[in-house]
């Protein structure tokens, strides 16, 4: 998991949990939060996506830090709500979900398990290591796509072509396989 970012220092400032609540383990809190599904990529959990940045437990109080995938990602609201609800159901008394935007999320943070789940659902996972963020001017990409071919998640062929740079959600684009002929979605590298 990546660095804790802006919010991490805040954890120590949390007041002690109120009263008699059994001290709940940070492992439990983390596993409950990590299991929340993404509403737009329901085959993936928050943990698979790599957007769960930090979980801090103090008595029965838990604080969770999440990172949205895109500036305008509307799924964040639902994820926040679900994380709160599930942690309360798991017995935590006071749940606070905070957002951390720096450093920004990268598709490289999707776990190997998450990539397997995407492919299993017919969505090509993002290629790794294309997340270069040069300090200088950003180069144009006028024709060739960056990096190696996107493999078809249905037949495994590398003979695929991108048909649209933007898909049904902010994080995906559209491809078609030249071999099996099927169209499929692909999680964009950012």
């Amino acid at each position, binding site marked *: 998991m990546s660095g804790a970012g*802006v919010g991490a220092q805040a954890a120590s400032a949390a007041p002690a949990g109120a009263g008699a609540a059994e001290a709940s383990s940070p492992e439990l809190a983390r596993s409950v939060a990590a299991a929340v599904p993404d509403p737009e990529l329901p085959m993936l959990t928050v943990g698979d996506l790599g957007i769960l940045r930090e979980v801090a437990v103090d008595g029965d109080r838990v604080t969770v830090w999440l990172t949205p995938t895109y500036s305008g990602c509307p799924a964040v609201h639902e994820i926040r709500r679900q994380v709160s609800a599930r942690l309360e159901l798991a017995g935590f008394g006071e749940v606070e979900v905070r957002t951390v935007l720096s450093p920004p999320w990268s598709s490289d943070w999707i776990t190997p398990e998450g990539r397997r789940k995407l492919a299993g659902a017919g969505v090509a996972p993002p290629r790794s290591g294309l997340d270069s963020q040069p300090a200088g001017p950003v180069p144009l990409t006028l024709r060739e796509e960056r990096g190696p071919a996107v493999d078809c998640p249905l037949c495994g062929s590398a003979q695929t072509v991108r048909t649209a740079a933007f898909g049904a959600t902010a994080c995906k684009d559209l491809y078609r396989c030249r071999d099996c002929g099927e169209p499929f979605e692909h999680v964009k590298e950012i």
Partner: protein
Amino acid sequence: MGFDTAYEAISEEADTGHRWAFGTGCTDPLAGVDTTVPDGVDCADLGAYCLMLGDDALIMSHRLQQWLASAPELEEETALANIALDLLGQARLLLSRAGTADGSGRSEDDYAYGRGEREFRNVRLAEMADADFGGLIARLLVFSTWRLALLSRLRASRDPVLAAVAAQGVREVTYHRDYAARWAIRLGDGTDHSRERMRAGLAAAAPYAAELFERTHVERRLAAAGVAVDPPGLRSEFDEVLGTVLGEAGLEWADAPGLPGLGRAPGGTSAQAGSIGQAGRDGIHTESMGYLLAELQSVARAMPGATW
């Protein structure tokens, strides 16, 4: 609820849940932020700068949204919706930051729905109505080329909020620029008809380009403080990128003189011009801005404070 950093405060939803349109519960004031404005930075300047960049994104996003159900193909409609959503996300963060930085405590909704035309600080390129798809592509190419050059430099801002918004925005606008560039090539290198549409679109956008590189007093002071990007410094990258794309497209960039709103070149019609010496950053807009805001703000104006 208190926040430990400015960044948390503006990104914190505080469980209001839905904040995606007027009236759906966005009433949460932002709190506890002034302490994180970097030393030596004027809070009012920082707020004004956030409004400039936020208004660029908000108004451009609205123009893109007007293409929904009008784009030539479903794929393009999806693309334009995605680009509009990215820009709306950037606008929300920047407008929220403006309210915390300038001390007014105004929310993103207050800024988007409660201001009059003269209070909007977007460049006039963002508000232009598009004559056709070629016009949209030309404008999006110019806008995203300029904004990407700006955001890539803003990543080094001393203000941690602006730096974070820029770092995410660079990844998004990279896609926007590539999208516009590819379409520009496809249309420019297409039929006589498509080339003419692109040419006309570029000619329509050109008079609004000079304004992108003008430096306001706010930007001058904040650039000196290491917070803002100095607009004239974006020109060379802009020219190079546009030259590359238009070269591939078989098109030319007609470097038009700035509109007289900037006090540089006389001429232009009153509908285009605004008053001498001022432009979008000063709240001087074109005729089309009033119509745009009338649509954007109509529900909020008709039913102030309504929720559902």
